[in-house]
């Protein structure tokens, strides 16, 4: 029974949360007051954990919240609930676009929101930077890395591994 409730609640979140992982936070606050699955304090920890483990933040939070509520199966059920609406919507949309490839009205909307999508990605970067860029040294380090990535095109995964090693040595 609890699995059904979990699936339903996270299905709802998946359907209503437009704009990525952190948008799910207010919904999770509601959950913490309607059920005794986790406390608001635990939710704060959940956000920190979801940001510091790999994977989409919203998915990580759903997995963790589901686990808190009903163990390992709970974690899996909550995650599936979260994914279901977006998968259905995206598949329907992709199928429609494949059938009507030259929908000019849609093209026009897409063209207008491309710069917006890019701005939101830039904002995502600023949001992460805001948490730790406190001085010129950090900003300078990011600038140096930026140039390195720009001129030495390696796989981003290598740069992330470099970040882990650098953090462990100098952090």
């Amino acid at each position, binding site marked *: 029974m609890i699995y059904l409730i979990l699936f339903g609640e996270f299905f709802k979140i*998946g*359907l209503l*949360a*437009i*704009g*990525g*992982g952190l*948008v799910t936070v207010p919904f999770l606050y509601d959950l913490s007051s309607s059920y005794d699955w986790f406390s608001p304090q635990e939710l704060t920890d959940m956000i920190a*954990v979801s*940001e*510091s*483990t*790999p*994977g*989409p*933040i919203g*998915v*990580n939070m759903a*997995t963790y919240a589901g*686990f808190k509520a009903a163990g390992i199966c709970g*974690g899996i059920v909550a995650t599936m609930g*979260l*994914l279901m609406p*977006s998968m259905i919507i*995206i*598949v329907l*949309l*992709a199928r429609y676009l494949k059938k009507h490839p030259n929908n000019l*009205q849609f093209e*026009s909307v*897409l*063209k*207008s*929101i*491309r*710069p*917006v*999508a*890019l*701005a*939101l*990605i*830039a904002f995502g*970067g*600023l949001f*992460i*930077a805001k*948490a*730790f860029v406190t001085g010129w040294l950090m900003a300078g380090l990011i600038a140096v*890395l*930026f140039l390195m990535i*720009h001129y030495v095109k390696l796989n*981003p*995964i290598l740069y*992330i591994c470099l*970040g*882990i*090693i650098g*953090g462990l040595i100098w*952090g």
Partner: protein
Amino acid sequence: MKKICELAAIFFRIGCFMFGGGAAMLPLLQEELVHRRKWLDDGKLMDYYSIGQSTPGIIAVNVATFTGYNYAGILGAITATIALITAPLIIILSLANILSLYMENPYVAKAFAGIRIVVVALIAEAVCRLWPSSIKNKMDIVFFIAALGMAISGFSVVVIMAVFCGIGFVLGKKRGWK
């Protein structure tokens, strides 16, 4: 079958190395789909993001589903999405019980300090690289600045996307597209 395995491998790898949400996934996708495999160009990738950001659900999941569907149909969509979340799911479930230990571990904190710096630089570089395919005229620059300003001043993504989708719709009508 080969396509499905390839999708699974790509998105599993991205799931292992994406730290920090949808934006952090962009440089990884660019490397895998645009540079290495040439399935997409930068413009198409931005279309996927535009759609992923303006539809319900987690952006990274939406982009994975969309890519998977376009490359290998429904099975591709499911494969890409499940592959993306496999590693994170396993990691969270196995960490959940020792979470306080994990969060307080000084080495974890140090590693993450390093990762965060790299992720910010990677996102900044990806934005620059995608600039020419998304920003083509003066109006696009205005849209970019307006959207960034709205995001910084706390408007939710839903509001921002609704506003600009509306503007795009009206502009389309004006150009005589029906």
